[in-house]
């Protein structure tokens, strides 16, 4: 097979060909390494490729396949977001402050993937400390979306914070990727690149060894080419981990078995509060199409109300920065990464953090410090956590009324340009990207983004499905219906 036909295989297809020895793991890995080499200057999806490690892992996979000991992801080449600790390999959360950091340990999620036979291709670009919706806050520069508007060469963002993951999957630079989602960082980039991204229920994937942003919201999940691949990856990533106290003690189901199951009789809720002012007609039309597809597949459509939806984003911008200001206190120039000398220890801290953190990270640490400071805690943080209770209650009431999943748009727009002026001038404009996804993190629920169509300029748009806690299976079932009806979308290769 040629290199490009190898890299176009889905994980399910590659798994088949590897099992029958049609192709070798090394051959597949080489094809991806060649593709990365050729494309990365243009896309900047990888911060570092790890070709030696990849070849070594692929050879080990071939040996296991030959011995009949293949794991669930044997020989499948993956990209890893720079937020995951990988032993002896660049792990910097795309930040300057973690310069040179190479952990002496492996995150639980990546360890699970390697235990199942997956191959690491390298570390993927992202927004610094996962704070951003465009991948422009990375110390390593922006990632370029493999998608372009028709007849236009303007570089577009791939979304964020998992922009490198989404771009690499869409541009055939890995078979699948790990990602994380604190307010939409898996689902928004997936929607911007016509890939599938799922944020599982809080507690499904271990957070051990993932650089912390906002601990009560952070969850790992995969970005993949299709729904089945996402199910295959999540099965391996998820686990019960004694090293993460919020890891939930329940067995990981066989998610792939849910793909293709009928949705007949399922109740799909349509929340009226997601019809926001100024939403483009194309998004509304796409949503209606999604509703039609679900109905045609035999699901029952019900109107629901989630009255506190509009407060999710403002509450998030108190809770997430508050937790971030606490989590990022550890970057002090003492234990790891960058140190900028100062006259005394305090000056050393202040100079290190001033130089090591980018603008968006500083902004959030400042907001978080302010809302937690004496005299403001009750007015901001405590109130936001109460609002969060109300947001979760809205969902609980919908599920209690028999709703199995909720269908919404994934983002309020398609991918936008790199360095767009109005986003640069007003941080809140950028934050609005997460308006449909952030509610899900605030309530700890699972959410999947599935490509559903192209806009008038030929750019991808996605739909989101939100499920009950730990019912990722219903999301794979319903997501698959959208995928079957909408078809597949791939960018035209220009890089």
């Amino acid at each position, binding site marked *: 097979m040629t290199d490009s036909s190898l890299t176009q295989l889905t994980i399910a297809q590659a798994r088949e060909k590897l099992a029958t020895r049609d192709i070798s793991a090394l051959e597949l890995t080489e094809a991806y390494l060649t593709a990365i080499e050729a494309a990365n200057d243009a896309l900047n999806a990888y911060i570092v490729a790890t070709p030696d490690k990849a070849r070594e892992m692929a050879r080990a996979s071939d040996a296991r396949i030959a011995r009949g000991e293949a794991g669930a992801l044997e020989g499948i080449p993956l990209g890893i977001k720079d937020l995951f600790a990988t032993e002896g390999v660049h792990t910097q959360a795309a930040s300057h402050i973690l310069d040179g950091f190479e952990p002496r340990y492996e995150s639980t999620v990546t360890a699970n993937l390697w235990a199942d036979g997956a191959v690491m291709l390298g570390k993927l670009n992202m927004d610094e400390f996962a704070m951003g919706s465009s991948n422009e806050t990375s110390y390593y520069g922006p990632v370029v979306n493999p998608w372009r508007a028709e007849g236009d060469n303007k570089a577009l963002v791939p979304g964020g914070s998992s922009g490198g993951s989404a771009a690499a999957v869409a541009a055939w630079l890995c078979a699948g990727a790990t990602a994380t989602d604190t307010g939409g960082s898996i689902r928004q980039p997936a929607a911007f690149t016509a890939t599938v991204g799922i944020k599982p229920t809080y507690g499904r994937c271990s957070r051990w060894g993932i650089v912390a942003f906002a601990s009560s919201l952070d969850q790992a999940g995969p970005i993949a080419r299709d729904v089945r691949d996402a199910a295959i990856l999540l099965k391996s990533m998820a686990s019960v981990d004694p090293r993460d106290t919020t890891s939930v003690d329940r067995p990981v189901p066989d998610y792939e078995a849910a793909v293709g199951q009928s949705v007949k009789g399922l109740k799909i809720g349509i929340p009226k509060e997601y019809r926001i002012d100024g939403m483009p007609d194309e998004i509304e039309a796409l949503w209606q199409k999604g509703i039609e597809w679900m109905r045609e597949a035999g699901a029952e459509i019900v109107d629901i109300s989630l009255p506190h939806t509009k407060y999710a984003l403002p509450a998030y911008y108190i809770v997430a920065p508050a937790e971030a200001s606490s989590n990022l206190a550890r970057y002090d120039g003492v234990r790891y990464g960058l140190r900028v000398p100062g006259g005394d220890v305090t000056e050393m801290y202040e*100079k290190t953090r001033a130089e090591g953190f980018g603008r968006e990270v500083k902004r959030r640490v400042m907001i978080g410090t302010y809302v937690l*400071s004496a005299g403001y805690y009750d007015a901001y943080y405590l109130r936001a956590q109460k609002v969060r209770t109300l947001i979760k209650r809205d969902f609980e009431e919908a599920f209690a009324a028999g709703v199995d999943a909720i269908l919404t748009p994934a983002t309020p727009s398609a991918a936008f340009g790199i360095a767009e002026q109005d986003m640069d001038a007003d941080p809140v404009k950028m934050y609005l990207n997460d308006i449909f996804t952030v509610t899900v993190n605030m309530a700890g629920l699972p959410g999947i983004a599935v490509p559903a169509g192209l806009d008038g300029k030929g750019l991808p748009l996605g739909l989101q499905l939100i499920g009950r806690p730990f019912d990722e299976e219903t999301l794979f079932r319903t997501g698959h219906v959208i995928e079957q009806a909408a078809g597949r979308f791939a960018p035209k290769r220009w890089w």
Partner: protein
Amino acid sequence: MSVDIETVKRVAKLARIAVDDEEAARMTGELNAILGFVEQLGEVDVADVEPMTSVIPTAIKMRQDEVTDGSKAEDIVANAPAGDDNFFVVPKVVE
């Protein structure tokens, strides 16, 4: 609520981030934009609402009180920008 430049400088001090006047002035505007945005939470009636402590109801995990990990001093200091004999080195803090 909004912040003035003096408050921004005080918060930067608390957060241990050095800022110059120009940066503090810019941050004042940005922080006020965000604080203005979150102001709308004031509309929500939160009387008798419990603040969220955990999205998924879970019991705190217990384990035996015994040493399960350790003897990794070299691993722990391996990434330190300045170290000496398995200690972190910092500027003098005690006169």
